């Protein structure tokens, strides 16, 4: 039975006990514990149910590779499913719950799957593909709901996440991933050579396996002491940055690395502290010193709680002072696992036997075990593990005769099938691997391919165990060589040095992929390979029988390695079993692809600070605060927030818009037009440049005059419009649509930089420099006068329509344009943005006696529609020409060329049945056509296809006309004046409307005379 030993545990602080809860039960651990070690110390062996069969599962590992102990951690907004207990640091008040069971962890209905699976092949390889084919209707009504209910691990959180997350960019000469002996050594070499080093470690402490396996002496010191001293010496070097709790998540092109830092995960809720920080690193060189992961052995019922990786068993003893069992059986194919037998023995547990799948076990470590009286049985394996919820007995048998079983009573099985180098980060960037037969592992083969930097030379190397150098001596000499190689690639060199390593000699491991069993276990359907996805040896063999040749296909067919652990403990075993079943060598069935991230990272870390108030930038005009304080009901326009209308008490949007329209047409209205794009175009070639950009002539514009201009793309389609002002002989000010400012500026620069680079023209986007205010209505002139507006030359009364005048209010220089988007007598006034709020308030005060009211974007839209003015994005959709909109008058026939001109000769543009802009007056004036409603040639019964002849582009209730109005693009629209069109709606009703001129109000333009 697992328990906390009275002493020991190098990572825990016994003076600082902390409380936590698991499935409602209050438990105690220590600062320094992981959730896994604390649960084990409390004899919590059963931690969850498996995905498919809902089999009871417990801890296997002590690190990132843990496939079973996935728990829900936290509560409310901080709840997060699928957290590895082995990687979750314990904190005071931590709340954890087990997953994937109902009604309780101990008694689970879903385990019926497993019971049934004994008789019929439920969830075997390809189960979904084979089962859910017929009958067809059953997919929707039976199979899919069932799968959805059963699918997935854990519950998604439902409350908003209260934590913050952020990104961090950094640069270094050498990034060293992994703070074990190899990482420390390689970092030391690179740092001594003078490189700027960033050394990261995914756990909270330096040393890696050296913390546990202290029987290795480095330079005469035990490995853990050496690691501590080395970490301290690195910390003292000014060119070394060291960070714990950072995982190398992904390696990308040219030294671009994604790292994942757990900042506040172990202390949630600290003010301002991000929970996770995503590092984006540019490293000139990278050393991948990520160690190796121990492989399970594949024997019957090897998934029972209490069956663990051998290395993890001694980790819990040494690091956390937790003894996982009173009595144990160790089963292995290598010498290293004997360290676990020794560790268990020294911790006071009874090691009933070490079963060695090799024919002989004569290394130093087996010798040490024998000397302590631990029975060593070469040529043995486990025939079957027994126990209801955890290991109770183990049936062992000679590999040569699986039926000759003997019974051992124990509560722990420590297994070791050898080690797999963690080559993930090397592989992300394109590093190639080769199968090494003797050590039964894939190790890097940089000669065939390695990640490269921007100059095309190798920039990423594995070091130590990650490079396949498992023995301590090899590991350190490899780390020295790789650290030196990274430095050399930077043109740096450290004085030669090589640590002296003394470690017990180890005999070679021997691959052992499947332990035979007898009876109903013989086929391997309880020999688990992928613990997280419940894939067994039988599944892989079935796939092989059904013709799956490549591991990539087998993976998808059986779901091997496709769970959240991405097969860290299962891929190699699965591969070997497939190869064995096919009678092929392992490399022949291929390898799976490693993809980032190494371990799952939080979605919050990817979003970073882009959430809540900072989710998306909201651009605000200088008058924004006034709008917000005065009933402004905002809508997004581009990235800006503009008032749709200003609502007074008791007013809805429609009433506010109607009031604003009537007030502007009857008295005077004020609009914040700051968001309109403003681009200065200056230079000797500015006139000819603008003649090429606009469809109409701009070179003929007089200084001080304004002209409405259209811009088309090279296909002849209208994409922006606005008023152009000639400020000087060689200088123009272009107004663009609100959303089009950046696009138009980019368009101008693209043509200037790529096609017309010989033109002497500068363009400058000055949208942000100016606050701009439209004053519209019969009292607009009087309001400006009352505000104290004085023109630099001439008088306000004499300023003609479409003219510009520099002016001032008090000592504030302003620009006055007499332009109108409402058909009223109207002006636009621009001032430097710093004075925008002041000018706005000055105009409101000046217009108070004249009945001034601000109006929003909707009143603007209604008024322009009443006048038949088009709006980019309403009347245009990227397929509409100026001619379609009746704007031929703004398309020059004189100019030799302009963007779009050639396109106007295309057959599609010149055909006579194009859609044309018209007005629409509904037969019932109270009915407003829905936006986008389609006109049809002939109304047919519901469900019958109808030929559409056009659609509504703008539609409003006109307060000044007291009826609805609409604009539409209709096939041959201009020929249809007076024709009544049908607009069938959803639900079968039909709106009838008469085609009219699109100018509904003040056709003669008397109001702006």
């Amino acid at each position, binding site marked *: 039975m697992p328990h906390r030993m009275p002493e020991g545990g190098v990572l825990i602080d016994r003076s600082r006990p902390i409380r936590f809860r698991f499935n409602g039960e209050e438990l105690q651990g220590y600062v320094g514990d992981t959730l896994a070690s604390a649960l084990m110390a409390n004899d919590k062996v059963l931690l969850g149910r498996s995905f498919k069969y809902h089999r009871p599962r417990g801890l296997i590992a002590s690190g990132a590779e843990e496939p079973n102990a996935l728990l829900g951690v936290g509560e409310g907004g901080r709840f997060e499913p699928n957290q590895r207990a082995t990687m979750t640091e314990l904190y005071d008040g931590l709340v954890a719950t087990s997953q994937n069971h109902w009604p309780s962890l101990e008694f689970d209905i879903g385990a019926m799957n497993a019971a049934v699976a004994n008789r019929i092949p439920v969830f075997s390889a390809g189960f979904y593909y084979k089962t859910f084919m017929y009958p067809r209707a059953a997919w929707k009504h039976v199979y899919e709901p069932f799968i959805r209910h059963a699918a997935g691990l854990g519950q998604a959180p439902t409350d908003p996440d209260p934590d*913050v997350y*952020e*990104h*961090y*960019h*950094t*640069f270094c000469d050498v990034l060293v991933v992994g703070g074990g002996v190899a990482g420390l050594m390689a970092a030391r070499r690179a740092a001594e050579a003078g490189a*700027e080093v960033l050394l990261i470690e995914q756990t909270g402490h330096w040393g890696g396996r050296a913390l546990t396996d202290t029987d290795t002496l480095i330079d005469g010191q035990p490995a853990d002491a050496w690691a501590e001293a080395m970490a301290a010496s690195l910390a003292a070097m000014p060119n070394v940055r060291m960070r714990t709790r950072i995982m190398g998540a992904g390696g990308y092109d040219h030294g671009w690395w994604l790292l994942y830092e757990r900042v506040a995960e172990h202390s949630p809720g*600290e*003010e*301002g*502290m*991000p929970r996770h*920080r995503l590092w*984006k690193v*540019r490293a000139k060189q990278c050393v991948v010193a990520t160690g190796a992961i121990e492989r399970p052995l594949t024997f019957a019922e090897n998934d029972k709680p209490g069956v663990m990786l051998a290395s993890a068993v001694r980790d819990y003893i040494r690091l956390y002072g937790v003894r996982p069992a009173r009595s144990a059986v160790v089963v292995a194919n290598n010498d290293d696992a004997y360290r676990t037998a020794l560790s268990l023995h020294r911790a006071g547990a009874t090691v009933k036997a070490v079963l060695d799948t090799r024919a002989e076990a004569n290394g130093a470590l087996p010798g040490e075990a024998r000397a302590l009286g631990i029975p060593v049985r070469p040529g043995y394996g486990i025939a079957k593990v027994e126990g209801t919820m955890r290991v109770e007995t183990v049936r062992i048998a000679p590999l040569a005769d699986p039926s000759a079983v003997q019974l051992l009573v124990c509560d722990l099985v420590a297994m070791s099938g050898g080690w797999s180098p963690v080559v993930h980060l090397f592989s992300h960037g394109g590093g190639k691997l080769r199968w090494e037969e003797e050590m039964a592992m894939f190790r890097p083969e940089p000669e065939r391919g390695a990640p490269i930097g921007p100059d095309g030379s190798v920039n990423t190397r594995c070091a130590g165990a990650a490079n396949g150098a498992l023995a301590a001596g090899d590991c350190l000499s490899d780390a020295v060589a790789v650290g030196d190689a990274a430095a050399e690639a930077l043109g740096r060199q450290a004085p030669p040095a090589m640590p002296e390593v003394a470690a017990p000699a180890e005999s070679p491991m021997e691959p052992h992929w499947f332990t035979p069993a007898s009876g109903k276990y013989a086929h391997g359907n309880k020999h688990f390979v992928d613990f997280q996805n419940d894939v067994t040896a039988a599944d892989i063999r079935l796939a092989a029988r059904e013709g799956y040749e490549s591991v990539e296909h087998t993976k998808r067919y059986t779901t091997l390695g496709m769970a959240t652990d991405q097969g860290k403990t299962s891929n190699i075993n699965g591969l070997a079993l497939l190869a064995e079943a096919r009678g092929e060598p392992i490399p022949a069935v291929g390898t799976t692809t490693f993809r980032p991230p190494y371990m799952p990272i939080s979605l919050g870390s990817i979003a*970073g*600070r*882009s959430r809540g*108030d*900072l989710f*998306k*930038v*909201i*651009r*605000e*005009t*200088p008058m*924004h*605060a006034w709008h917000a304080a005065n009933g402004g009901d905002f809508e997004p326009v581009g*990235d*800006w927030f503009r008032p749709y209308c200003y609502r007074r008490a008791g007013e809805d949007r429609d009433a506010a818009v109607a009031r604003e329209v009537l007030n502007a047409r009857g008295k005077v209205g004020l609009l914040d037009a700051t968001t309109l794009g403003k681009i*200065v175009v*200056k*230079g*000797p070639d500015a006139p000819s440049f603008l003649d090429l950009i606009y469809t109409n002539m701009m070179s003929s514009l007089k200084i001080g005059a304004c002209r409405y201009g259209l811009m088309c793309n090279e296909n002849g389609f209208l994409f922006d419009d606005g008023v152009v002002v000639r400020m000087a002989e060689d200088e123009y000010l272009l107004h663009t649509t609100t959303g089009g400012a950046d696009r138009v500026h980019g368009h101008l620069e693209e043509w200037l930089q790529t096609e017309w680079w010989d033109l*002497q023209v*500068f363009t*400058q986007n*000055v*949208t*942000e*420099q*100016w606050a701009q205010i439209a004053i519209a209505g019969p009292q607009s002139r009087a309001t400006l006068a009352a505000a*104290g507006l004085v023109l630099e030359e001439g008088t306000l009364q004499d300023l003609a329509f479409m003219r510009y005048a520099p002016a001032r*209010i*008090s*000592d*504030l*220089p302003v620009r006055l344009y007499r332009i109108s988007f409402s058909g009223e007598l109207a002006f636009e006034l621009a001032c*430097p*943005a*710093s*004075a925008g*709020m*002041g000018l706005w*308030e*000055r105009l409101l*005060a*000046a217009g108070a006696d004249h009945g001034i009211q601000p109006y929003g974007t909707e009143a603007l839209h209604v008024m322009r529609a009443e006048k038949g003015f088009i709006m980019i994005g309403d009347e245009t959709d990227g397929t509409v020409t100026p001619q379609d909109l009746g704007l031929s008058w703004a398309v020059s026939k004189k100019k030799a060329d302009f963007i779009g001109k050639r396109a106007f000769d295309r057959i599609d543009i010149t055909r006579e049945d194009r859609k044309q802009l018209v007005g629409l007056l509904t037969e019932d004036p109270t009915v407003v056509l829905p936006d986008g409603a389609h006109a049809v040639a002939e109304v047919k019964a519901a469900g019958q296809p109808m030929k559409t002849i056009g659609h509504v582009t703008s539609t409003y209730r006109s307060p000044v006309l007291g009826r609805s109005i609409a604009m539409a693009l209709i096939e041959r629209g201009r020929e249809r004046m007076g024709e009544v069109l049908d607009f069938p709606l959803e639900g079968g009703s039909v709106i009838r409307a008469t085609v009219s001129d699109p100018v509904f109000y003040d056709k003669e333009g008397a109001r702006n005379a």
Partner: protein
Amino acid sequence: MHELQRVSAAPAVAGAVHESGHFVRVAESGLRGQVTLRGDLATPAMARAVNEAVGLAVPDRLRGNFDGPRAVLWMARDELMLLLPHEEARAAAAQASAALSDTHHLAIDVSDARTIFTLTGENAAALLAKGAPVDLSATGFPVGTVRRTHLGEIAIAFWRREETVWEVMGFRSTAPHLAEWLRTSSLLGAAV
């Protein structure tokens, strides 16, 4: 009659200072005169125009020259930005334009287009590194370096005036976003 007061940013942003509880002091730096100057940066006329306006030399690529409230920043291969007292900017733009009248150029007062924040502290670079993909180390970004880049989602420029003093410039309309980003990212708990 209502005063035509000049303000550097939205009410919640203008003049705001965050110091206590922050690992970097973040302060909106008020009205600053800003003039965009475009033309051939290598000409004697440009050197004269810049010298007349701010008394400084044309900076090298990605560099700025500084003298109290006056500075000249390299913005692009044909673009500089002059910093000077706000009330001088309009005249300075006109004067520069006159000095460059014989060459193709643009000199324009854009003093109100951008809002500037001053970051002070040993770890100011770490604050910017949370949003800008730029090497901000002492060697990668020595004093006097200028960079146009992005901070999170928004376009910005920043420069290192002194070892521990940085200035960050963003478009005026995005200043509330930039201010909030700098405020929350500089909280003590978020120190890197």
